[in-house]
């Protein structure tokens, strides 16, 4: 699943560590999501969208692999 996490994080000038702190997850989790190695659970996806004040569809883009 593609996402705009890195772009959104850069727009807010947040490091991976600070975003991880806001989401209450590890920095490895943020990094894995950004690099497409891990798809977050639905609650975490909602939390990510909420942190950026966006809808889930504006952050994540479903793609069939």
């Amino acid at each position, binding site marked *: 699943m593609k996402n705009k996490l890195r772009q959104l994080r850069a727009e807010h000038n947040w490091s*991976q560590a600070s975003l991880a702190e806001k989401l209450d*997850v590890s*920095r*490895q*989790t943020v*990094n894995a999501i950004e690099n497409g190695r891990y798809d977050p659970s639905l609650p975490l996806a909602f939390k990510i969208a909420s942190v950026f004040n966006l809808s889930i569809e504006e952050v994540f883009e479903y793609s069939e692999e």
Partner: protein
Amino acid sequence: MMNNNQENKTSQGEARKGIMIGMAAGMALGAVIGFIVGDISMGFIIGMVIGMAVGYWRFRDTPIGMRYPPHLVWQLIISGVCYLGILIIVLYLLEIDLDQSVQIMIVLVPTIPGLWFLVTLGRAIASLDELQRRIQLEAIAIGFGISAIVALTYGLLGMAGLAQASWMYVPVVMVFGWFLGKMWTLWRYR
């Protein structure tokens, strides 16, 4: 100020270093302890527990969410040490000519700290974030698979008259399998 790639490599690097140094130190210390105790496999088990504690102190610098909460780590260490200590006492008592019913009760005593370790491990894994939980559970699954294959293969070799090993090597193989699984899953979700 470190950029994200550097920051990520640092904490992942610290995590891997902590685990590898801990396990290596444990194995080396285990050889020494094994020589003293008279059983290399027991020494390796004791050494690994101590090594994991050493590895934790190195791992401590990684952010919360990638490691277990400190109070649960201490419970794991204490329950592990209790289990090994009671196990050594039980092995010593079994060499004394005791009544079989007493022997059966004695061999069941180590299960108490063993259960404490298992419950604490479950709580520790549950305290991690979703990706870390997945990493741990995948590592345990891989370790289980490796242990099963090694144990079955070794059993078959024993039936063919080629191998005969103490049951004490089983936990060593299980821990080593978990370690390999952990390294694989850390790399997979790098």
